[in-house]
């Protein structure tokens, strides 16, 4: 299993978790102050090309954090699937960003830097924070009037890799080169418009190290689903063979009626079989599309249980491996698949539309020969639990959720 990020609160309790967040905030504030972010004329000077200190700190930080994050991910230390990547809301992001830009040049701070200015008694910073508190209040009062705008143009977890359809390594190299180019250009502008002392020569070495790291990250590549399964296989394969994750049809039926769990049933068969018969509320996601939904799955609430199903078990087990390898928690397989389900819960209603069982059915073939497509419009799609009494050995247990469910400014 990829060890980081940690699941702080379940692992250490709330107090320790909150102290860790406090400590991270402390370091953040300490560095912001040390770098000069409590001095508003410096923050504003970047917009007149006179002193690009803030611009330099900012883009250097992005490159350093990016290289470390994707470096750690490349060597299997950090799970990129489990870190919070801001979802994209296009238009509210653009308009909000422009408003922030106006606030930036007028106020001379941004929220983080204003807190540091307040902490060091800068009176202009204190006024900025007061205005900031009022702005937050104002937004909470008007947001109901602009919900369509605020929530529209939602694209989910979209990364630059998705936009440009390039591998992570290439994007990392391009961002690094772009940042170095911008910093270089920034220094030129600074020399033209301001009177800053030149930066130390060591920065050339730094830039070289950045590019080198970016290239190494590109060569290493990010772990694929197969790589991730390889890492998990020693632990999970024996459990899979002991049938730890295969839940019997009665347990699934029981779970359908367990309202404290958020049950997500995923039917990975082809469309034809799905149309002939599927469980009520089972989502149709063909096996080769399962990978596209990983981030949606991870973002679901911590009480979510996924049950994947196919006609038998081969395809469902494949889907289970993909999802488990990609760090989706609480994934189970329907024991014996839909064929087994129908054996358990088929009723005279379905029999009317069934020409019988096939003598020889291949693996992953629907064993029952339906004469019409029933979809979920029959009793077996949502059996009445009072009509069937089966004992089962409960197997579902909730794992600790590791992925954060909200971001930095949530």
């Amino acid at each position, binding site marked *: 299993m990829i060890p980081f990020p940690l699941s702080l609160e379940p692992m250490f309790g709330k107090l320790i978790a909150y102290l860790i967040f*406090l400590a991270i905030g402390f370091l953040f504030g300490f*560095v912001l102050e040390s770098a000069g972010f409590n001095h508003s*004329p410096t923050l504003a000077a970047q917009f007149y090309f006179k002193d690009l*200190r*803030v611009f330099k700190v900012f883009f250097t*930080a992005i490159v350093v954090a990016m290289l470390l*994050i994707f470096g750690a991910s490349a060597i299997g230390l950090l799970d*990129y699937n489990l870190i919070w990547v801001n979802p994209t809301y296009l238009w509210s*992001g653009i308009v909000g960003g*422009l408003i922030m830009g106006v606030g930036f040049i007028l106020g001379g701070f941004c929220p983080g830097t204003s807190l540091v200015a307040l902490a060091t008694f800068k009176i202009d910073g204190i006024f900025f924070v007061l205005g900031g508190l009022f702005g937050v209040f104002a937004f909470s009062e008007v947001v109901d009037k602009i919900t369509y705008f605020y929530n529209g143009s939602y694209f989910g977890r979209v990364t630059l890799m998705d936009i440009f359809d390039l591998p992570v390594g290439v994007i990392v190299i391009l961002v690094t080169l772009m940042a170095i180019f911008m910093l270089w250009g920034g220094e030129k502008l600074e020399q033209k418009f301001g009177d800053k002392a030149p930066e130390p020569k060591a920065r050339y070495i730094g830039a070289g190290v950045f590019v080198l790291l970016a290239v190494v990250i590109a060569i290493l590549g990010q772990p694929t689903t197969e790589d991730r399964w390889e890492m998990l296989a020693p632990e999970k394969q024996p459990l899979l063979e002991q049938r730890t994750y295969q839940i019997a049809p009665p347990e699934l039926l029981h779970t359908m009626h367990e309202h404290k769990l958020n049950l997500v049933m995923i039917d990975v068969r082809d469309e034809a079989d799905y149309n002939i018969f599927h469980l009520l509320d089972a989502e149709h996601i063909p096996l080769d599309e399962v990978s596209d939904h990983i981030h949606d799955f991870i973002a679901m609430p911590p009480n979510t249980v996924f049950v994947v199903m196919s006609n038998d078990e081969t395809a469902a087990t494949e889907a289970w491996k993909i999802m488990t390898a990609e760090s989706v928690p609480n994934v189970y397989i329907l024991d014996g698949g839909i064929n087994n389900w129908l054996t358990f819960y088929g009723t005279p209603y379905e029999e009317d539309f069934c020409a019988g069982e096939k003598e020889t059915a291949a693996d992953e073939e629907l064993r029952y020969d339906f004469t019409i497509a029933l979809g979920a419009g029959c009793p077996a799609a949502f059996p009445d639990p009072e009509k069937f009494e089966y004992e089962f050995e409960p197997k579902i247990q909730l794992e600790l959720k590791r992925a954060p469910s909200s971001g930095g400014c949530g």
Partner: protein
Amino acid sequence: MSTTTPPIKKESTLKRLFSRPGKPYINSYLGGVLLGIVLFISYFITGNGLGASGGLSRYVAFVEDLVAPDHVNRVPYLISMAGGDLNALDNWIVMVSTGVILGGFVSGLINGRAKFETNKGPNISNRTRWIVAFFGGMLFTFGARMARGCTSGQALSGGATLSAGSWVVMFAIFGGAYALAYFVRKLWN
């Protein structure tokens, strides 16, 4: 660095702490590397990036919940933070924002930069600076709530994790500021 007489030593220690000449800020690139490392540590351990405006909005929701709980329970945006028996401050981002204030204070104190002063452009009065700072802060956090994050939560954190939307927000922030800079140059130059 003058020596003081014993009877007023205590007071003068305090005074000296706050009126020392401020040390210069660290080199920008060094600051960037340190900030990047802090951001990485945050993602590495917690899975979350850094943020500031989220904490502010929860402070406000907390106060609103004290003053007008009924109102909070009617506004969907506030309900999610402070509705019912939710405590708006019971959230990790509040810890981060509070830590920012503490960390900034300690760094300012150690380096002799924690002092009451108004920093501004040479051609405006303190009062103008304060009023404009207030409006700037108001607009900034309003925009930050709309964009679901500020320079820390969107541009910096989302930038480093290569979120497409965050890069858009980043360019919008800098675009907005650069576009307006010329027209308000009197404020800063």
